[in-house]
């Protein structure tokens, strides 16, 4: 494999992994606190929508990014309220949030613009070359010549890791995910902590959606996340709820997808549809490979009930 192809493959892996990583980091926070993050697909879609529409109206991408966080958090607030306050089933509530987000974004895309979906063409976030470092061979173009949100996503891994492992708040969050009754007995409020965790997860996932609409494609279309939120969930399991390993999981799915895209150019007798299946198939294969070794937070999916 020559140098140019390798560079292209590696940058494509990172490009594909970026939105997954933001969503997955949010999912880790939510699931560490004991709430399944099936709703991230919807939060991500809401974020992509909020970001695109705000940028279109306000002509300012910074407002767009803020709006994407807020939109994701809004969908997450519905999930948080239902799962924590009403003790609704996590999996199915997440699914309901996905349908709700799909419906609302598609409805508002038309409803807010007089009944017809507008053609959205936005300027995308351009690459930022880090001086000197971007001149390095291989690592330069791959790691140090990327758009803004890619740096943000990968740099966020460290603070999220430190938060979960090294801070009081992070440890309390994980305690709530493992044994809410024990956390409660030492003064934590599991319900409040879980709600905050889910809403923070929504903000992360919304930002992940913004990567799609504001950094990669510069537009919004119905259902554009297309299962990326679910791929991020797979990456969380692959990474066993540890941010740095989860990043590895996202890069793995990214690399597999990049390779599949690249294979398309080799003239093999594979149609583009079979190739589009690869990320999903790879995710399933990896999940099967991990099998029962993955240990999820012990109290995940179970409501906390004071006794």
């Amino acid at each position, binding site marked *: 494999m020559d140098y140019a192809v390798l560079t292209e493959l590696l940058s494509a892996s990172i490009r594909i992994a970026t939105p997954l990583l933001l969503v997955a980091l949010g999912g880790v926070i939510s699931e560490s606190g004991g709430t399944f993050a*099936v709703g991230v697909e919807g939060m991500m879609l809401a974020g992509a929508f909020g970001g695109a529409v705000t940028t279109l109206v306000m002509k300012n991408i910074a407002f767009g990014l803020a709006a994407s966080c807020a939109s994701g958090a809004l969908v997450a607030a*519905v999930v948080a309220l*239902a799962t924590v306050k*009403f*003790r*609704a*089933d996590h*999996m*199915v*509530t997440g*699914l*309901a*949030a*996905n*349908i*709700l*987000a*799909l*419906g*609302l974004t*598609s*409805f*508002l895309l*038309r*409803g*807010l613009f*007089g*009944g017809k979906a507008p053609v959205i063409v936005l300027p995308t976030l351009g690459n930022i070359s880090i001086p000197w470092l971007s001149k390095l061979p291989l690592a330069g173009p791959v790691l140090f010549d990327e758009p803004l949100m890619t740096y943000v996503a990968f740099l966020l891994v460290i603070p999220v890791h430190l938060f979960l492992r090294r801070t009081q708040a992070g440890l309390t969050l994980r305690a709530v995910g493992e*044994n*809410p*009754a024990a956390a409660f007995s030492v003064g934590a409020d599991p319900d409040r902590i879980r709600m905050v965790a889910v809403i923070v997860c929504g903000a992360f996932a919304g930002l992940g959606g913004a990567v799609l609409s504001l950094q990669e494609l510069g537009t919004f279309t*119905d259902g554009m996340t*297309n*299962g990326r939120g*679910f*791929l991020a*969930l*797979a990456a969380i*399991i692959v990474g066993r709820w540890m941010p740095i390993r989860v990043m590895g999981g996202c890069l793995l799915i990214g690399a597999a997808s990049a390779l599949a895209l690249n294979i398309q150019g080799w003239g093999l007798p594979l*149609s583009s*549809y*079979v190739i*589009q*299946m690869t990320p*999903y*198939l790879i*995710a*399933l294969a990896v*999940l*099967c490979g991990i*099998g*029962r070794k*993955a240990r999820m937070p*012990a*109290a995940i*999916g*179970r*409501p906390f*009930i004071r*006794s």
Partner: protein
Amino acid sequence: MAPTDQPANLTEAAVIRSDHKMSDFWRRLALAGLAILLSLLFGAVAIFVSGKNPVLAYWSLLKGAFGSVDSIAFALNKSTPYILTGVGVALCFRARVINIGGEGQIAVGGIAASWVALNASDLPGFCLIPLAILAGSVAGAAWAAIPAAMRLTRGVHEVLGTLLLNFVGLLMVSEVLHGPMGEVGAGFPQSPLFPEQAWLPALVPGTDLHIGIILAVLAVFACHFAFWRTPFGFRLRLVGSSEAAAAYAGVTFARTVAGVMLLAGALAGVAGAIEVLGVHYRLIQGFSVGFGFNAVAIALLASLNPIAVLPAGLFFGFLEAGALAMQREIGVPSSLVYVIQGLTMVFVLCAIGISWRQQRI
């Protein structure tokens, strides 16, 4: 309190309560009605935000759903795959198997039925149609068997297994339509038209209403009977209420989970077959989009009671038919249906959660 003492609330709440008490029946009905009412209310707000009059919009929706014989036929045809898939989902949820792979199962069911319809076209209709539907159900069951096997042998949660396979199933439809089964020269990815003897016969002559709805009703009654009156149904209820109790009673968890997944897959596959044989008369790209999630919403609205899937499925079928008319007439986007569906699900889930809590305290 050890975390294992707490039930995974969704199905447990539904199973613990007896479904045969009359008061319980009215309570559930009121619950479903309230969920629908609240969702429609939120929907009205959404319509208002989009600058349209909600009263006019809902009136046009109602007219679109019930306005004429043709519109009723259209809505009944819409409900058919939802009911078939929904009743399978309800049974799965009862056993605490969160199968949300209806969309993929419908897709491959449609592919298999289409293949039979196109390749066994010299058979007479009374052989060809049952054969095509059978092929659809086998394909749907086989598709559902994959996540079931992943769950049982490798511990992959069926939510992720079924969800990810949905995308693969949808892409398989595109794949066969751009390959072996596609119509050459058509502007849209679709198969050639099926021979006329493969079309589902009309139930009411002169309308589009096909016999699929009969199959759906039969399936609902069969599932109702199977759930309440057979050992299989008892095992489902037992596994759903307590895995430990089920194991103690000698019920194999794996066999029950696999059984209910295959059943739901087969029902979804039949839905896919009916959709291509009765509505489109050909395989078309994306024909199953949204059906699987619809089925989940219906199963929940029916509070996971097989027989109640019938009215719940009809409700969503008529809602969707009406919404399409509303979009044509006054330009309110029909994606409002998804908003209402999502909200209904959230409200029902909250209500199930609360009622369980009340019972416990």
